[in-house]
């Protein structure tokens, strides 16, 4: 294998050294997915090299794990099978185009959010950011349905089109890209192939180029922080400001956990805040901003919440995290060393129920109350009161006993959430596939058959789907 890969990419860009391979064997999800080293790492520099590698792997039925910039927190790039090739795509790091007129960017897998923001901000545009650090791959996050609304106004679907090399070496292009040089529309002809492929366990092929939406950076902005004593108290306020499309960003969260990252500091007395805080950013062009701002102020005054006086530097951090490149969200690792989360989509109406269920299941699994937190991000436009909800547990990752408890939490919580009704899982986490497949009837069979067509030799790290 090594010799064949060397012929494709050159000696400099392939290694089977056990120590170097070992460094790819874990991410921070080690309590849930066991460490496993790939057999070799290969770093292609071109699309043609990727195609040759896939053809070689497919012919020899060798599993392939695409890896973009290495910021993975759910073991999505940890090998499942022995003798896997890890396809490190970090050399493909070109921003192919920023189209100011069309408000789009086209990137390769190795482009990070930091790199892209640095360029887009020059034309007052920005991508939608996940809470992931600026070192994360733009392409992988968009392809994996990884943009979970640090900015509510951005909506949900940011991917316009992409090109993918399948295991058989065929190149497919999605959306308008399929038959034209214009890459700016998701639905070109026939079914939404991009939508079908997003968020599968493993992948269907290797995405080499992706076009995504960019959003305006406005001159006029104002942040507000509103404290609530309970999740229920906050619901009407959160509903109204999102239903009326008034806010650029909106996150309701507890005052212990993710707020540290949003405020960008450990050095603040978070205990003095109300138990739940709604962090809101209003933004817009002159005129519209002022109108929205007045309406938001009115909603705040009419709500049971308390307007909080937050220091300007912390407010600036919130603005940066939400629309200018999230950098400090990883401070959650500073709370206890590691964190576990289940990310789901669901309606705002169900949020108090999810929160209660989160606490109950954690308690049933023997997890202390002070490890258990959450946040909710509404997503515009607010049909179905769509929200991204994150159920978090902050813990010491070296504590094997706690790891066991959290695995038990997962076993209990996945079916409970399905019973409580959710819109969907954020990502194909370890453990969610089995209980969910049982409930989706023939769709599971159809899904498998589609994947069999694209990847008949099952080389794309599908995990538990099959």
């Amino acid at each position, binding site marked *: 294998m090594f010799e064949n890969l060397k012929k494709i990419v050159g000696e400099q860009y392939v*290694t089977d050294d056990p120590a170097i391979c070992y460094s790819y064997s874990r991410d921070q999800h080690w309590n849930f997915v066991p460490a496993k080293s790939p057999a070799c790492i290969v770093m292609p520099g071109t699309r043609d090299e990727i195609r040759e590698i896939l053809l070689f792997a497919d012919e020899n039925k060798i599993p392939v794990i695409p890896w973009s910039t290495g910021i993975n927190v759910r073991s999505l790039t940890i090998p499942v099978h022995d003798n896997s090739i890890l396809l490190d795509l970090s050399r493909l790091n070109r921003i192919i185009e920023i189209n100011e007129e069309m408000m789009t960017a086209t990137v390769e897998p190795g482009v990070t959010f930091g790199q892209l923001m640095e360029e887009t901000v020059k034309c007052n545009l920005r991508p939608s950011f996940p809470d992931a*650090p600026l070192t994360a791959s733009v392409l992988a996050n968009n392809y994996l349905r990884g943009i979970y609304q640090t900015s509510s106004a951005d909506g949900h679907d940011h991917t316009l089109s992409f090109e993918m090399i399948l295991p058989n070496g065929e190149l497919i292009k999605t959306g308008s890209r399929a038959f034209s040089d214009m890459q700016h529309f998701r639905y070109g002809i026939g079914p939404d192939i991009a939508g079908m492929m997003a968020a599968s366990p493993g992948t269907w092929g290797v995405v080499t180029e992706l076009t995504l939406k960019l959003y305006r950076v406005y001159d006029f902005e104002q942040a507000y922080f509103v404290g609530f004593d309970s999740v229920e108290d906050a619901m009407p306020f959160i509903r109204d400001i999102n239903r009326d499309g008034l806010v650029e960003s909106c996150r309701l969260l507890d005052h212990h956990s993710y707020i540290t990252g949003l405020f960008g500091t450990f050095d603040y007395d978070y205990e003095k805040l109300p138990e739940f805080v709604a962090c809101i950013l209003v933004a817009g062009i002159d005129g519209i901003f002022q109108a929205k701002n007045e309406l938001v102020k009115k909603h705040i005054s009419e709500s049971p919440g308390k307007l909080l006086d937050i220091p300007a530097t912390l407010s600036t951090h919130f603005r940066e995290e939400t629309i200018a490149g999230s950098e400090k969200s*990883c401070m959650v690792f500073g709370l206890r060393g590691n964190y576990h989360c289940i990310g789901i989509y669901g309606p705002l109406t169900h949020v108090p129920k999810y929160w209660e269920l989160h606490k109950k299941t954690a308690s049933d699994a023997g997890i202390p109350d002070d490890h258990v937190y959450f946040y909710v991000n509404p997503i515009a436009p607010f049909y179905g009161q769509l929200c991204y909800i994150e159920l978090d547990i902050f813990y010491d990752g070296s504590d094997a006993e706690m790891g066991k408890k959290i695995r038990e939490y997962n076993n209990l919580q996945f079916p409970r959430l399905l019973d409580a009704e959710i819109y969907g899982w954020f990502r194909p986490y370890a453990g969610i596939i089995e209980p969910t497949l049982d409930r989706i009837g023939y769709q599971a069979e159809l899904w498998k058959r589609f994947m069999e067509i694209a990847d008949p030799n099952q080389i794309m790290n599908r995990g538990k789907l099959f």
Partner: protein
Amino acid sequence: MQPEEMKEAIYRCGKCKLCSIATYHPNEKSLPICPSGEYYRYQAFFAPGRLEVLRGVLDDEIENSEGLLKVAYACTLCGACYEKCREISSIEQNHAEIFEEMRNLLVEKGWMMDAHRDIMEKVSETGNAYAAPVSEDYGHGKREDTLYFIGCTSRYREPEIVDAMIAVLEASGEKFSILGDETCCGSVLFRTGQREAGEVQVQKNIRAIKESGAKRIVFTCPGCLMTFKKNYPDLGVELLHSTEFITQCLDRLPLKKLDMNVTYHDPCHLGRHLGIYNEPREILNRITNLHEMKRIREQSWCCGSGGGVKSAFDDFALWSAGERIREAGDVADILTSACPFCKRNLAEAADGMEIYDVVELVKLALEV
């Protein structure tokens, strides 16, 4: 450092890899700060990957290999990853120290670079890392309260720094001595995991310092200074870097302003490891027109020379220096540092850029 401490650091790494870039806001620039990761590219060469490899060593899951040696030793131990990480994770374990401890573990197993073994043998045989004939040119026989500890690199490779420091000491009116038979402080041995050999040097120097009667020691080499502070017992002697000494007597030195546009490169040992950032800048602001690069202070880009990299991976060392030279060229005509290792490595990659140690510019400012 105990294995438990190392494991705590390993288990606190969330693999966010923010340790590989400078703080983005408010400069709005995504700038790399991990030379090893940028040069070798594989995950193993960034701090999160290197920590994983250390886990494999601690758990006896990794055997010796060419790759293991490269991962362990092709790192300058610059500590940029730690400075960034502690902002994010509030972690207290210093990655530079952890990676140095990793080398100790490997050396105990006999897994080390030939180039580093060669240095150890040279130090053992000649008292200096370059196996140069012992130079007593600088020896001042007198016992004085202040001792100038020159260090191997300045003494045998960058004598302009020594000449400049002697001129500055003389201009300050400070009476000082220099050890004629000065021997290696042990820095390169400790940094490459050769702790036992380093301890031999410590004992030699303790005897020499005691015999000198010095009450304070001035260093032009931050590596020597850090080693005295970190690896030596408390000698009851004040330890100062040249830039600290000069700052203390800045007002009594007859300095003129030089018509020079300079920028300053923070040496890792001086800045990140000892926290000395302001003194060199205070001096340069007094005698030159100082223009800052984008990556400075805690988030400075390493010159590429430290941690035994220059001797074992010269291509990587020179590439790192070249990156710094390009960055310096964006803001100034002259690049200064305050470390003989930095000066030497940067000068090799200078591509026309003038490179000075801060003390050399102070000497020039005395002569105007």
